[in-house]
Each structure stands twice: as C-alpha cells, then as structure tokens.
C-alpha cells in the first residue's frame, strides 16, 4: 500500500512539477504546482510527519498559492506567456547532469543508515506533540527568528508593493539639481 502510494505520488508529483517548469501557460503551471504541493503533503503523511503535512497544506496551498494567484492576477498573466526559452539541449544537459549528480549523492546508502537520532521521536506520542516539544524547547530561538523573518518579509512586501515606490526620491533632483526632475530613465 505504502509502496503503491509512494510510487503514485512520486510519479504524479514529478509529472506535475514537470508541467510547472515546462508549461507555457501560467495558470497550468501554477495549478500543477499547487497540486504537486498537495501531493507532497501526502508524502509527508505517509512518512508520519503529520504536522509537517498540515503545515505544508496550509502554508503552501493556502498562503503561498493564494499569494501567487493574487500576484498573477495583478500581473495580468493568466494566459500563455511568451518566453524566449534557453535552447533545450543546454537546459537538459545542465538539468540532466545536476540530476545525475544529485541522485548519485542522495542514493548513497550511507544516508540514513547507522544514524543515531539526536531527537528521537518519542514513542506513543503523536507527531504534532512531539514536534511541538522540540520546536518550543530546542528550536525556540530559530522559531522566534523565523517570526522576525516573517516580519521582515511583511515589511518588505509592504514597502516594495507600496505606492511610495512609484516616485523615486533617488532620481528627483532636490535643490540645486532641479533640471530633469523625476524622469524615469527606462
């Protein structure tokens, strides 16, 4: 069962992501990305990382995809985008070689074997509990820093998307440099 689910999910995820990276249509790309994310959360559930699965669903499918969707609408990019894509040969050469490299690295049997866990998953405790336990002790500081990071991201988003960026003080001449005020160069 698990095997079947894995392969199904794997193939689906890979396929969907391939659509994401190859499709010319933004909508398809985004949809398949979202679908892939959902399926990944499925993988997480299979792996017993329930908390992670949920977070994946909420954050990715919920927040991230919603953001992208808004962005897409803003960019008026619902249809097919025209791209002057890189020659396929180069892309697949680089992609293929990196795939080979990564697979060689990750397929090493040494990974995950003979490993003593530093935070052993406690027996008889469900995953969110266990995660919470570690997150709010050991990883409290990173957690708080992540909060700062999100704050930074928020401020950044607000500033960058804000109206105030429309005119650039860096280009408006002040005082003695009064000519050619505020002309955009591009």
């Amino acid at each position: 069962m698990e095997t079947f689910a894995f392969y199904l999910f794997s193939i689906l995820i890979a396929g969907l992501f391939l659509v994401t990276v190859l499709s010319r249509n933004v909508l398809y790309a985004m949809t398949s990305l979202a679908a892939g994310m959902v399926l990944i959360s499925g993988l997480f559930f299979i792996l017993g990382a329930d908390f992670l699965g949920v977070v994946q669903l909420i954050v990715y499918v919920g927040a991230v995809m919603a953001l992208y969707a808004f962005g897409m609408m803003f960019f008026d990019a619902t249809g097919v985008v025209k791209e002057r894509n890189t020659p396929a040969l180069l892309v697949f050469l680089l992609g293929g070689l990196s795939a080979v490299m990564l697979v060689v690295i990750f397929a090493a049997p040494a990974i995950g074997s003979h490993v003593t866990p530093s935070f052993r998953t406690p027996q008889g405790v469900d995953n969110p509990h266990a995660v919470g336990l570690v997150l709010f002790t050991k990883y409290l500081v990173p957690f708080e820093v992540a909060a700062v990071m999100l704050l930074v991201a928020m401020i950044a988003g607000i500033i960058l998307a804000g109206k105030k960026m429309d005119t650039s003080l860096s280009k408006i001449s002040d005082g003695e440099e009064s000519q050619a005020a505020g002309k955009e160069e591009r």
Partner: protein
Amino acid sequence: MEGLVYTALFAPLAGSLFAALFGMRPKTLLTGVVTSLLLLVSFIASTALLWHVMHVGPVHVKLMDWIVAGDMSIPFGFNVDQVTAVMMTVVTLVSTVVHIYSNGYMEHDKGFNRFFSYLSAFVFSMLVLVMSDNFLGLFIGWEGVGVCSWLLIGFWYHKPDVTRDENPSISPSWAANEAFIMNRIADLGMLIGIFLIYWNVGSLQYDAVFAAVPHLSHALLVAIGVFLFIGAMGKSAQFPLHTWLADAMEGPTPVSALIHAATMVTAGVYLVIRAHPLYSAVPGVGYFVAVVGTFVAIFAASMALVNRDLKRIIAYSTLSQLGYMFAAAGLGAYWVALFHLAAHAFFKALLFLGAGNVMHAMHDELDIFKMGGLKKVMKWTYIYMGVASLALAGIWPFAGFYSKDTILEVAFNEHTYGIWFVLWLTAGLTAFYSFRLVFLAFWSDERYKCYGFHPHEVQRYVLWAMFPLGLLAVIFGWYKEEFVDFVTGLLPAYEVSEHTHHMLPILVTVTLAIAIGGIVVAYVMYHKRLKRSEKVEASLPYRILYNQYYIPILYEKVFAKPYAELSDIAWKEIDLQVVDATVDGIAKVVEESGDATRRMQSGNLSDYLKWMAGGAIALAILAVIVVANG
C-alpha cells in the same frame, strides 16, 4: 728628493689646471707662457732626478693610499729608477720644446688656452705612467694619456665628417673616438693581465710582482705576458690595432710630435721594458713580441712608401720605428729598446715639428705633391728636417744610426735572421720614404705656386725652441756608452756574442749601404721634379699600399658596420619585438582574458542561474578528479 719627484710630476698638472681656468676665454698668451715655464721646471727637476739616480740611486715615494679593498692595496707610489729617469727626461724635454713651439704654432687658434691645458695634462698623465710604482698606477697614466690624446686628436672638433676618399681620417672627432676605442680594446687585455697578476701575486707593486715571478707557473707567466702585451699593442699601435695612429694625425701637429711620436705611443715599449723580469722569464712571449714588432716595422714602412700626406708618412715611420723597439725589447735587449725609444723621441719630434712648420707655411696643406722647393723659403726648417731624416734613416753619425744599428746587431746575435733581414730591409725603405718626403717637399720644382701658396719661415723663437731636439738628434748617439752604463743599473746588460762582434763591421756596412741606397733612390726619383706614373698608381700593389692594405675599410665593414647593424637589431628586433613584446603580450593576454571572461557577465539573469548550476556540476567533476587521484 721627494720634493723633486713631486715637482716634476705636478708642475705640468698645475700648468694644466692654470690653463684650464682660462679654457673658455679667448686666447691669453699667459697660459702658453706659464705652462711652458712649468714644463721647464718639470724638465729641470727631471734632469736633477736623473743626476740623482745616476749618482745616488733610485728614489721611491708614496703619496697616499688610493684603492684599499679586501687584500687589494693600491697606493699612489712613485718610483724613480734608471728607466723612469730616462723616460722622464725625454718626456719633459720633448714636452717643453713642444710647449714652446706651440706658442707659435697655435698663435691664431681660438682654443689656445684649452690646447695648453690639454697638453700639460697629457704630460702629467705620461709622467704618472712612467713614474708609478705599480701596475694600476701605470694604468692610470695609461688611460690618462688616452683621454688627453682623445681630446687633442679631436681638438678641432668642429670639423665635419667627410668621406674616406676626401680624408682618410674622416674627421678629427672621428679619429679621436677611433683612437680611444682601439686603446680601450687593448686596455681590456691589460686589465685582465693586471687581474691575473693580482690574484696570483696578491699585489700590484712592481717589486713584489717581479720578486714573485720565479714562483709563478710558466703558463701563467705566458698569459700575463700576452695580456700585458695586448695592452701595449693598443697604446703603441701595433698590428692589428694600428689604424688609429695614422688617423690621429688629425690633431694639431705639436700633438702629433709629442704624443703620437715621442711619448705616448712608446708607452707600450716602456711597459715591456718595465716588465722585463717577466718577459725575460718567458722568452717565447718575447719572441712573439719581436715578431709582431718586426712585422709592424716593415708593414708600416711599406705604407709610407706611397703616401702623399706629409704627416701620415711620418706617422707610418713612427709605427715602423715602434716595431723596431718591440723587436729589440722582445729579443731581450731592453736597454737597446730604451735607447732607440729616446733617440727616436728626439728626431721624430723634430721631424714632426718641422712638418708643422711646413704646414704652417702651406696653410695646412699636407699633400707633398703640392709642395716642392721649399728649402729656399724655409731654410732652417729644411735643415732640421734633413737632420731628423738622416737620423731616422740611420746614417752615421746621427742618433738613429747608433740605436737602429744596435737593434739589427741584436737580431743577428739572437740568430733570428728572419727578423734581422726584415729589419734590414725596412731600414732601406725607411731611408727611401724619408728622403722621398724631404726631396718632394724641399727640393724639386716649386709646385706650390700653382696652388697659390705663399710659404714663409716660422717665428724665430720657434726655430730656437726646436734647437735642442736638433742637437740631440745629432749627438745623442755619441753617448751610447754612458747610457748603457746608466740603464744597466736596472736593465739586464745585453752583450753580443763573440761571433757577432766579429761580424760587426760587416753588419754596419751592410746596414749603412741599404740606408744610403734608399736615399739615393729617392734622390734619383724626386730631387728634380715630381714624376708621377699613372700606370704605377693604378697598379694593385700601389693601391693596396695607398689604401693601407684596405684595413680601415675592412674594419669598418667587418666590425663597425655589423656592430651598428647588430645593435640596431638588438634594439628593434630583440628588445622591442621580443623582450618587451613578451611583457606587453602578457599584459595583453590578461586584458583580453578579461574581455573574454566578462562575457559570462551577460546581464541576463537566466545565464547567471545556468552558471550557478554549471558551477555545481564543475565542482562535482573537480571532486571526482581529486578523489580519483587520491
């Protein structure tokens, strides 16, 4: 005695510096007078020293240390022994005469003051050369006379370069440079000789060196002897470094008399005489010296046979006589060489000064074909030159007879009959060309009139100044015995063998015969009028002799020109095209690599991302390589 030594040595220097003070001013008679007087002082001091050496013994003084480094300690030390005393006396005497003579000769020259400054400086250098008590001190004088000679040959530096056909010496400045550079070539040899001495003896003092001669290996002595002789060859213009001497006649005639006849050119002979303990130890080298000398004697005489240039003829004769001296010195008869040196100084200086008178009269015309019959207007000059020529030709009882004859005896005595024969033959040639000159200039038809010259005799005091030389040219030979007694205090006495002694009357007769024969031929050919034969002048031997065996042209073609071309190649083809271009090439490669690599910075983000992925792959490949190579 020390005072005398320094007086003799530094009086000319003082004169030179005094004259130099006025060097850039218009003519001041004072300079001529003062330098001449100081030279006279020097001459008197030298004579006193000669007397002192004769009756008391050699003098040795040390002024101060010069170069002291490592084990090398070179002082300014001066040694007046028999040889030096003779040299000093000869040098100062001729110099004094020439100085006084120059007062008249240079009367109208713009560089009058300068001339005396140089001339006195030369005398000082020459005195350093002969008085020094070590080889490096000798080298100071050696180079010093070289520079003074350079200055004086190029005295009329303003003359432009002309073609070799117009003037074989091209220009005074050219001749000066040629002389200096030729001498430098020889000086390198001399320096090497000095180095050899230093590193094997540990000192350059004559006494130390000669004391060490018995302890040195034969090969080393040969090397030292040869290298020192190379130095001597330059100064004394021995073949193949002889070409500069004839060209040096571009200088004012008093200079030719003093430097290029009487004194400087004999420095090489002096060196061999001075280093006689060394040359005595290696007779092979001595023989080589003699052979070179003999060769030069006839070689130079042959060139004098056909030349038309008054001074050049005398210059070749000087060369030839230097050959005689080397022959004598090389064969071990050092005192004979010195004797001939002194005698030659007197009569040759006289000859040159006479030639100067002629030039003066002829407005610097030197072509003897354009003269003739001058004895009418220049009686005294004619007499002087006649006497000098007789001495040069070796006619009894003039000075040249005694000295030259002795050389021939020595050659005979050493059983080097080849040398004897050549020298004997040369004696004939000498007589011929000397009197060819005399007859063409003073007898025969008055050709100068066609060219519009108005010759006249020179000032009275100039003629008087020449008198001591004229006197000595006649009587110096009579004091041979005294001379021998004196110098053999230092130099080895040379005794001819019994057999030679018996042969003497015959030898003398034979020698006199050929000399007189030469004069007679000249008389027959030239005493009436100048006879020129187109055919003879067009013949190959004549042209070879007239063009100095084509040696100057050869030198120019083989050395000077290729050197200039090679230098040009070294600069333009190698230095700029190879060495510098390599450096610039590296810089260019770097810069072009910059231009090439900056293309990866295409500005396109997509490319950047590709590079990043590619970079990761490249790193992986690198890792594989490193791991594979262990």
